[in-house]
């Protein structure tokens, strides 16, 4: 009897020993690394090649898989369990001047299923922290929380942050006074403020800019594209604007007052008029906010979703009551939602509510706003002409704002030199070419700015081995970001280890970036400490870990 038990125990021990050795030898499968094609995204493609090379040195088998954006978005965004690692980017937009949109939406567990947390990051401590910063209205207290959030992300490395690109723009300094160009923090000189302040010095009074993207729509209720946004920004006023310093400031609002954490009273500026001559009233403001959440403008709806009610007090005071306190409300709602004329849009929205289409498919012949520029003409795929609204409280110094649609980057640069353009707002070519051209020409000034946006490599945290923070840190540490900056971005970028750009000085955690150690040796040491085997040869999981993938 005793021997039988002993034998059984022996078998059990043997079995467990066998199992342990088998799992210790469990090789990490070939990792699929996604990137967009070289022709479309040369810097991204180059960076991914460099990264794959460094990862292979660790003993990881990497297969770079090149696919166009529409296919990549499908593979990553709509099939969240099936991908391994992908190159990704977030673009800089004025409303991202508040860190909330990035640090909340990208990493909060509530957005993991079908929102922007497509990597599947779940960390209760982090969730609590970003929820708290959202309702912390005191800037200093909030700053501490935002910095802490960046430290957690640094420790967890849910993404491998690569760089914040630098965008280069150029203008003709013989046409405009260079001192009147406004460099908006994180946005650059292609900013709303430049279009107001830019002062012509000679006979050419028009600002002529370019875009390689087509204009899809000029519609205050539809976020149709980056270029389109330049136009709606100019045609429509908003209660607040993100200022050159990246912080919100009153615009169509004369003044404002927080009555408590969830109530803000806005006094509307006197004498505002729409381009058709009718005054902008408090009723128009209430209507504008109702329109965004009324179901006909789905893309704007999230910006108004925290508003419980909007009421008019007296002639020109508007009181917003919020569902929950919101630190970013000025930036993400008041500086975001366009003020539209009730007399134009009320019948339109009433008509649309009986149809399948919503306000996004409605294009006015002449969009009417109250902004600093008036809409004049739109020639499809060729140009859009706006003219200065001389009656505006901040009337532009130039006479017209003309957007030319130029799909060819070399041609755009040539046009800048010949005077067909005088402000290069979109240059898809090599920035060095732009610098060389400026030097050769003598009339051009090039200004580059660090972007709010960033480039990164996203890990699918739902799938091993990327569920292990040590493994992610090792992969992230394997690549010196200076290599990416120099070789892939031709020096037009700054190294990153935080989703909050250094352009947002107030919110950026600089020690997270400066303290990040990288190099092949660093990466190998991390892997060794975490128990991974076959380093530098063929990586295997630590003892006892087997590779299991959900179907």
């Amino acid at each position: 009897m005793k021997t039988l038990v002993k034998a059984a125990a022996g078998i059990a021990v043997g079995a467990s020993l066998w199992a342990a050795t088998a799992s210790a030898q469990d090789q990490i499968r070939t990792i699929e690394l996604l990137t967009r094609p070289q022709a479309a995204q040369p810097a991204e493609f180059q960076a991914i090649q460099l990264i794959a090379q460094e990862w292979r040195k660790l003993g990881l088998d990497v297969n770079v898989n090149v696919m166009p954006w529409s296919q990549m978005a499908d593979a990553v965004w709509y099939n969240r369990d099936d991908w391994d690692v992908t190159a990704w980017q977030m673009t800089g937009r004025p409303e991202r001047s508040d860190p909330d949109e990035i640090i909340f939406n990208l990493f909060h567990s509530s957005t993991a299923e079908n929102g922007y947390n497509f990597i599947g990051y779940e960390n209760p401590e982090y969730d609590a922290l970003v929820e708290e910063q959202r309702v912390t209205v005191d800037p200093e207290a909030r700053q501490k929380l935002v910095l802490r959030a960046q430290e957690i992300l640094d420790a967890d490395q849910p993404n491998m942050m690569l760089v914040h690109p630098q965008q280069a723009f150029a203008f003709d300094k013989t046409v405009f006074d260079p001192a009147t160009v406004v460099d908006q923090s994180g946005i650059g000189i292609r900013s709303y403020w430049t279009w107001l302040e830019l002062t012509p010095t000679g006979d050419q009074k028009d600002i002529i800019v370019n875009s390689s993207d087509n204009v899809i729509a000029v519609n205050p209720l539809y976020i149709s594209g980056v270029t389109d946004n330049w136009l709606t920004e100019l045609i429509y006023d908003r209660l607040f604007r993100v200022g050159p310093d990246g912080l919100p400031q009153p615009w169509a609002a004369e003044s404002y007052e927080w009555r408590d954490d969830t109530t803000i009273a806005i006094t509307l500026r006197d004498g505002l008029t729409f381009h058709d001559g009718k005054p902008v009233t408090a009723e128009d403001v209430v209507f504008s906010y109702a329109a965004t959440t009324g179901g006909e403008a789905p893309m704007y709806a999230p910006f108004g979703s925290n508003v419980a009610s909007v009421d008019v007090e007296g002639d020109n005071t508007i009181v917003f009551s919020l569902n929950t306190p919101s630190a970013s409300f000025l930036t993400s709602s008041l500086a975001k939602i366009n003020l539209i004329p009730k007399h134009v849009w009320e019948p339109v929205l009433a008509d649309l509510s009986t149809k399948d289409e919503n306000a996004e498919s409605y294009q006015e012949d002449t969009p009417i706003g109250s902004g600093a520029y008036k809409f004049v003409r739109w020639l499809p795929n060729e140009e859009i002409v706006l003219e200065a609204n001389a009656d505006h409280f901040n009337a532009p110094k130039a006479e017209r704002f003309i957007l030319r649609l130029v799909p060819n980057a070399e041609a755009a640069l040539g046009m800048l030199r010949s005077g067909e353009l005088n402000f290069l707002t979109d240059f898809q070519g090599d920035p060095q070419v732009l610098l060389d051209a400026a030097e050769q020409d003598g009339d051009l000034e090039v200004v580059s700015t660090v972007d709010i946006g960033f480039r990164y490599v996203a890990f699918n945290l739902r799938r091993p081995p990327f569920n292990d923070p040590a493994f992610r840190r090792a992969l992230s540490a394997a690549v010196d970001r200076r290599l990416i900056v120099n070789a892939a971005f031709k020096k037009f970028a700054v190294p990153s280890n935080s989703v909050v750009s250094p352009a947002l000085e107030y919110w950026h955690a600089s020690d997270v970036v400066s303290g990040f150690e990288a190099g092949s040796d660093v990466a190998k040491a991390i892997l060794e400490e975490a128990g991974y085997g076959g380093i530098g040869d063929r990586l295997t999981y630590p003892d006892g870990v087997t590779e299991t993938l959900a179907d």
Partner: protein
Amino acid sequence: MSTLKPFLIRTLQLLLVLWAVVTILFLMFRLMPGNPLAAYIDPTFTAEQQEALIRQFGLDKPLWQQYFTYLGNLLQGELGDSFRYRTPVAERILLLLPNTLILTFSSLIVAYTFGILAGAWLAWKRNSRFEAAALPAVLATRAMPEFWLGMVLLAIFSFSLGWFPAGGTRSAGTSYDSLWQLYTSANFLSHLFLPMMTLAIYSQGLPLLLMRSNMLDVMKEDFVTMAKIKGLSPSAVVIRHGARNALLPVMTSFAIAVGYQLQGNVVVESVFSWPGLGRELVNAVAASDYPLAQGAFLMIAIVVITMNLIADLLYTFLDPRISHA
């Protein structure tokens, strides 16, 4: 009767070809990898909105049902709404078509006028040293890719010499009361010149070589010998008896060349920022905007097929020996 029947048969064939084109277009775009709505991803875009959009465009229905809806709509002249612009495709195409047509036809007229004259001249100069130099040069222009030629012309005549503007149909901010005023303005013509020349240089080779070889054939014909024997002057022989007869196939090739030219437009319109249908087509395909891409392709297919029909019928009228009966 004898002229009506072939016309009817041809038209019937044309409709069959159109149906095939329509079907291929429908399938082609739906077999492309990727999600057509991926272009509209935004952090603020919820899953419900995504689904609402899919429903709005009918993408939730089975493929065969989408196909019949599409055919039914086409029969009523309804091309659907563009995914990107959210506006009717037909409206968009009609806005851009005139720019494409004016570029296509002006370049073809230049190419054919030059090609026919130079072709006849080269045939006349048969076996000369001039011919030895000219023929390889013509072949070289045929071999040059249009986008490359376009960039070279831009670099020389726009960026270096500054003679012509680099893009668009007019200077920034200029407006005209009517299309006619625009098309006859010096501003428009100077913008038209470089893209037109790019296309014309590329396409003059075909009429030139065709004209030359036809001339060489015709000049061997009995009636030409007869004309010479009658003592007509060399110019009368070449122009009245030679060229007029050699011209026939060249003229019909014009119709077919329109189709090729529209192909070239896709590239040249992008190089010269020309607001035409070709550039829109590139954008639409890149953005997986099925309805717009289908509409633009269909419009081009209709122009090509119609021009082919005209070419066929032209033969019947110009040369009674050819019969469709």
